[in-house]
């Protein structure tokens, strides 16, 4: 071998700078209270920003930094909420709208998942499915409402079809990306056991791509809410999209903002639900540890 065997150290140890010792045992502190403290802090900071924005908003209104026409102060928005609740509109809108969103989302997610798997797993699937879906996703449905009415009528079907069409793509795209992102090595490892492509898909690829698929589902859930604003232009007498449209037509800035807040709150609820779903369906993922 090439090594020369010197028997004296290149550097006398006395000259070596003493290594700096760092104490890692501080991390030892009981984990239970730590976790509880972290959760508390999390709750605070998660709610802090929204509340800070709210306070800023009220101050801005009080000091006349913005005109109440441009942005009515929170107190006025609260009145708008009170009005929506007094008339019962809000209570009937939310279940109506959520039902529409949910049905559209279910079908859309199913279709997106199936197409995403088809395109992700088989090259021929990609070749057949991808181009039409890339086209589908850029269709501006809001500009197609008259066509939707002509094609699908003015019933619930038309509204749900619109939501359906809008939710396919996010699930498709993320399923596809998730499937393609599964480590080839894993797929090889199970392929040699003689699994059929379908079995590989079901037993290995779908579980492994699930985080990505769930991102798509989360996104689609948001889209299903957004699509309400288009869908509920079609012969709706209630629903949060309808409330917004109506307020829009009558320049009720306060109700528009109240409606947007309802949307935002539903967005947060969806997010929480999706977090729970992710937590339950991805037990193998290490709980998020920040870098």
């Amino acid at each position, binding site marked *: 071998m090439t090594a020369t065997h010197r028997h004296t150290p290149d550097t006398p140890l006395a000259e070596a700078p003493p290594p700096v010792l760092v104490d890692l045992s501080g991390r030892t502190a009981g984990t239970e209270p730590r976790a509880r403290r972290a959760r508390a802090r999390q709750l605070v900071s998660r709610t802090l920003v929204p509340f800070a924005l709210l306070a800023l908003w009220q101050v801005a209104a009080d000091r006349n930094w913005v005109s109440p*026409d*441009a942005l009515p102060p929170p107190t006025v928005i609260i009145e708008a909420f009170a009005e929506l609740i007094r008339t019962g509109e809000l209570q009937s809108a939310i279940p109506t709208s959520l039902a529409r969103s949910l049905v559209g989302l279910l079908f859309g997610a199913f279709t997106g998942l199936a197409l995403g798997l088809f395109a992700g797993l088989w090259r021929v699937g990609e070749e057949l499915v991808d181009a039409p879906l890339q086209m589908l996703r850029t269709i501006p449905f809001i500009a197609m*409402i*008259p*066509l939707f*009415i*002509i094609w699908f*009528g*003015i019933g619930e079907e038309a509204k749900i079809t619109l939501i359906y069409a809008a939710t396919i793509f996010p699930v498709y795209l993320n399923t596809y990306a998730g499937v393609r992102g599964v480590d080839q090595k894993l797929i090889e490892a199970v392929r040699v056991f003689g699994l059929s492509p379908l079995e590989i898909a079901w037993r290995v690829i779908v579980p492994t791509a699930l985080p990505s698929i769930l991102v798509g589902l989360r996104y689609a859930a948001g889209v299903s809410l957004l699509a309400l604003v288009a869908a509920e*232009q*079609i*012969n*709706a*007498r209630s629903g949060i999209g309808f409330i917004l*449209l*109506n307020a*829009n*037509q*009558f*320049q*009720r800035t306060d109700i528009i903002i109240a409606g947007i807040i309802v949307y935002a709150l539903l967005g947060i609820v969806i997010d929480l639900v999706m977090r729970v779903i992710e937590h339950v369906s991805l037990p193998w993922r290490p709980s998020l540890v920040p870098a």
Partner: protein
Amino acid sequence: QTSRVKLLIGFQDTTLPETVAASKVLEGTPYDVEWVILPGPAAQLSALYSKAIDVGHMGDTSLIIEQGKARTPWTAENVPLQIVAGWRATDAQYPPIITVTRTDARIETLADLRGKRWAYNFGGFNYLQYVLSLQKAGLKPADIQPIQLGDQSATSAAFNAGRADVYSGNFAAVAEAVERGDAKPLLTSDQLDIPALNVFTARGDVVRDRAKSEALADFLARVRRHWDWYAANLDTVEKIYTEKVKQSPARAKISTVYLKATFRPLDDAVIAREQAIADVLVASGDLPRKIDVSLEFNRAFNAATTGGN
């Protein structure tokens, strides 16, 4: 050197801007005019409130609703917006708004409307046409199948595609179906005594600003001359509607006649009719309180719009 006055004029589509441009009436103005296209009255009103435009375009009912829902009541001193000019079609063959029925729905009398699918859209005088048609037929919304849609284009699409039996709204949008015999008129806006004016609404501070209001008066006078040009050049207008505004040839033919308009003076008669409309909306619950519509009308520009002095 004083800077030139500039008028920002809102309009909901490109029809008037295109025909005004073709008529060349705005050549040589001592001020600048810029058209701002904002579909829908809501966008026009927003732009007015935010001072993004000086003058907006809407139906005559829009300000009634604005005043009705205002948090602080309008007074002569604080009135934020005022109608400075109003116009409507000159051709009796084409009422501005209308209630029509599909021929295959076999609606002969007002009583036949009961239980029918009736398409309308909220806001503006389209909605008024629906409310007053119902009233005239002695019906309540519960007596029919109301189909409320987001805007005029959705409403006419639903009706033209046979998804509704009855339609209340802009006549031009269903005129082709009427001409084909698929639909027939039931009630016109005139029969319901709806003025159905298109109006220019100016900001209060624009009207009070001497330089701007002088420019506005001159602008309106020029638009009046444009209406004369329009009536004399129907072929040119039709061509503009097909080529520039992108209407179908059939629709353009109708629009040419339908949009042939003149300014109407904002006089006591008009204001009385508008007041009646406001009262109807209060009665129907669409407006929370009684209002005085005369506050909304500024008669100072009548001279410019009608050619008198």
